[in-house]
């Protein structure tokens, strides 16, 4: 009778303690990363801005300064037909409100205009070839933007000068240089969505060029799971970093994208990179990666391509299929590797397989596609049918049909190009394409879209005859993963 109240008090105290704990340590909300985010500059060319050191009214010969104190100090990044304008040092407008086209590039510091100058150049001023275009941002929402929430985009702008006058800005790094907003009209910023649930449209964006921010509010309704595309038109690309720029290499700028709730708390965020560059006329940069992994199999359990592993099964590593000493003729040895591919490349990937040659005694050359034990080689398998090749497979379930071959099984996704149980086979095998015999590499994995950890088992099999010359046999099997173009 005395124990029951005590237990009851314990429960009550525990409950209160846990309540306090949950009160003082509420679960933390962490912002996720917006997925499939990308950015594209419709015109990725850096703007041109050099000091105009000489140019006289009525003539068309222009000389620029070679001083590296200016963003451009030679004509490498100026091309015939470029539209240019001469300004004074304060960048208060084009001199004489006149624009010119570049006619010819004479040398590293001089060029000519297609029409004669209507006024002298300002020797402290600039010759400018403005490069402008749209910035397209696309991303998929992870967390729902509630009604009243917004998308907050931060575009890098220069830390000094007018960042909204239409003239390209400059600085020494991506923290002091950036895009010019070029008097961006908020109504020209286009926001669209596809997929998900996102009705009611978006408010007219709020543009703050000084801070480089654009706020797009979703006042009417929430937006969930959608792919959002924002097109910001007529942005002026920066000129190259002063002194810290390598001609021909891009200057990278990060654009921050965040989604926020009605109180401007960040829901999801990500950074996308744009990389304007000189010398290149058109370029698309998407932050993509292709990853490929080979893993050996050592566990003495599980079935791989219909073969159950046990203690007698050959252990593979990522680097080798070490058959060891093959003591028994006319019996199968099996070994497996796991191949895994991940990529956000939009067109997917392929993985091919090849061998440098058939397995040769001490690496001896096995000339031709059918070199066998008579020339101290372990031949590539021709299967039970005697007809399989690197292109056409066949059932290989009889160990007296000697040779070396492989099969495939899918682990995740649908990447395998054939399967060990094709047409009811027990082990549907193919030869590894022999490069010594100029056989065509064969695709063993592929996908046509972005994938995460597509996996296959590559199941190798070998059997030799009792008359195979003794010794060390080896070759090199190579996997090649490439994105589809």
């Amino acid at each position, binding site marked *: 009778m005395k124990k029951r109240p005590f237990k009851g008090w314990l429960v009550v105290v525990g409950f209160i303690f846990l309540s306090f704990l949950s009160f003082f340590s509420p679960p933390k909300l962490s912002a996720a990363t917006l997925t499939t985010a990308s950015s594209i500059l419709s015109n990725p060319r850096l703007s041109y801005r050099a000091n105009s050191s000489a140019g006289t009214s009525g003539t068309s010969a222009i000389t620029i300064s070679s001083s590296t104190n200016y963003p451009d100090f030679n004509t490498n990044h100026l*091309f015939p*037909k470029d539209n240019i304008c001469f300004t004074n040092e304060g960048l208060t407008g084009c001199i004489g409100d006149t624009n010119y086209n570049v006619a010819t590039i004479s040398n590293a510091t001089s060029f000519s205009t297609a029409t004669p100058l209507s006024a002298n150049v300002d020797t402290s001023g600039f010759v400018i070839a403005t490069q402008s275009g749209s910035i397209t941002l696309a991303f998929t929402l992870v967390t729902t933007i509630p009604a009243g929430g917004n998308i907050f985009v931060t575009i890098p702008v220069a830390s000094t000068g007018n960042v909204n006058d239409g003239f390209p800005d400059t600085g020494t790094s991506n923290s002091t240089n950036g895009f010019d907003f070029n008097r961006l009209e908020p109504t020209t910023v286009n926001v669209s969505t*596809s*997929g998900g649930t996102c009705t009611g449209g978006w408010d007219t964006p709020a543009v703050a060029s000084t801070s480089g921010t654009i706020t797009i509010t979703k006042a009417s309704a929430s937006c969930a799971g959608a*792919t959002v595309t924002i097109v910001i038109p007529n942005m002026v690309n920066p000129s190259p970093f002063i002194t810290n720029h390598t*001609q*021909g*290499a891009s200057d990278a700028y990060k654009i921050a994208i965040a989604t926020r709730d009605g109180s401007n708390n960040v829901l999801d965020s990500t950074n996308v990179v744009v990389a304007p*560059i000189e*010398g*290149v*006329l*058109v*370029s*698309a940069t*998407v*932050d*993509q*990666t*292709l*990853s*490929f*992994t*080979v*893993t*050996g199999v*050592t*566990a003495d359990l599980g079935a791989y391509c219909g073969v159950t592993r046990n203690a007698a099964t050959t252990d593979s*590593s*990522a*680097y*080798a*299929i*070490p058959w*060891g*000493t093959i003591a028994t003729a006319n019996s199968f040895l099996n070994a497996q590797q796991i191949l895994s591919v991940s*990529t956000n*490349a*939009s*067109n997917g*990937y*392929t993985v091919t397989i090849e061998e440098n040659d058939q*397995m040769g005694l001490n690496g001896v050359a096995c000339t031709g596609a059918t070199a066998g034990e008579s020339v101290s080689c372990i031949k590539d398998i021709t299967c039970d049918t005697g007809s399989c090749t690197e292109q056409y497979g066949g059932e290989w379930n009889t160990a007296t049909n000697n040779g*070396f071959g492989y099969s495939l099984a899918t682990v995740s996704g649908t990447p395998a190009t054939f399967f060990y149980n094709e047409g009811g086979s027990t082990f549907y095998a193919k030869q590894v394409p022999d490069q010594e015999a100029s056989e065509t*590499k064969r695709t063993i994995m592929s996908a*046509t*879209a972005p994938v995460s950890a597509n996996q296959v088992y590559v199941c190798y099999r070998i059997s030799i005859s009792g008359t195979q010359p003794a010794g*060390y046999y*080896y*070759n*090199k*099997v*190579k*996997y*090649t*993963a*490439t*994105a*589809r*173009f």
Partner: protein
Amino acid sequence: MQKIKQTTKVTCLFISLFICSLVYSIPVHAQTLGLSISPPIDEVMIIPGKAITQTFTITNDGNDGMASIYIVPFKADGENGNVDLDEKNAITNSSPYASWFSLSSPVNNFGEKFYMASGQRQDVIVKISPASDAAEKDYYFTLLYELDNTIPGGIVPIGPTNQARIGTNLLISLSKDGEPNKVLNLVEFSAPTIIDSLGELRFNIKIGNFGSYVFKPNGEIVIKPTFGNSETLKIAPLNIISDSIRNIPCLENEETVICESKNKVLVGIYKTTLTVSADNQDLPQKKTITTIAFPFSLIVGTILVVAVYKILKKPKNKI
């Protein structure tokens, strides 16, 4: 009684240990050969005689190994965007394109081995400088990052050893004015002439590029039925490199999908028009095809139902 209790305790302990061993088993980490490269595709247009420096990031996601970098020309393999590497013409000092490419990091020569520790990230900096007299057209290469464990002093195992390579495709367009002419050939736009009403109205699109420059097809398929509203499908803007034909799927929510009508039941005549151009550059090409959807399966089903009904309803002969 005491002995039984002791046996029970031992059994319980054994079962507990067995369960613990299952739940808290020590993970086994196998050796891996892992490679990453970014970006996996690089498209540049450059003026002959100018230079551009591109940076690729490679990662060793597996165990320590020896890496090397190669550049190999490629052409299209098949009609799905696969590459066919021309390894015999890999860039070497004596190859025709030797002067176009130079490697400045992490080593200075293509094929030169360098050590990559597990987890190491490394920038590969390649300068591309096509000759000023090079023909204005496209040139296609794959930058290969190869990794194996042939660390000097290593032992060659008996049996096959593995190498893995991962590649970035370089689509290099040479143009003096930045406005190269792109030539799109609509090789195939087809669908079945007659389909069942419950069947699928699927379209095959093959677009050829017999010009000199890569392009992305831009266009749409508009399906106009006899009854109901028309339907529009957007075709996927995949790269079609020169001298190749490519199967073109459709695009839906930024994913490639089979080009097919979303309508589940189709009845009547469907006139479908494909309008497509290369990078929005030239005049769009159009082709219209016609498909008749007839309710074969519905009619057969109805006949079967009626027949079964009549058989069941047939008066039985009285004996």
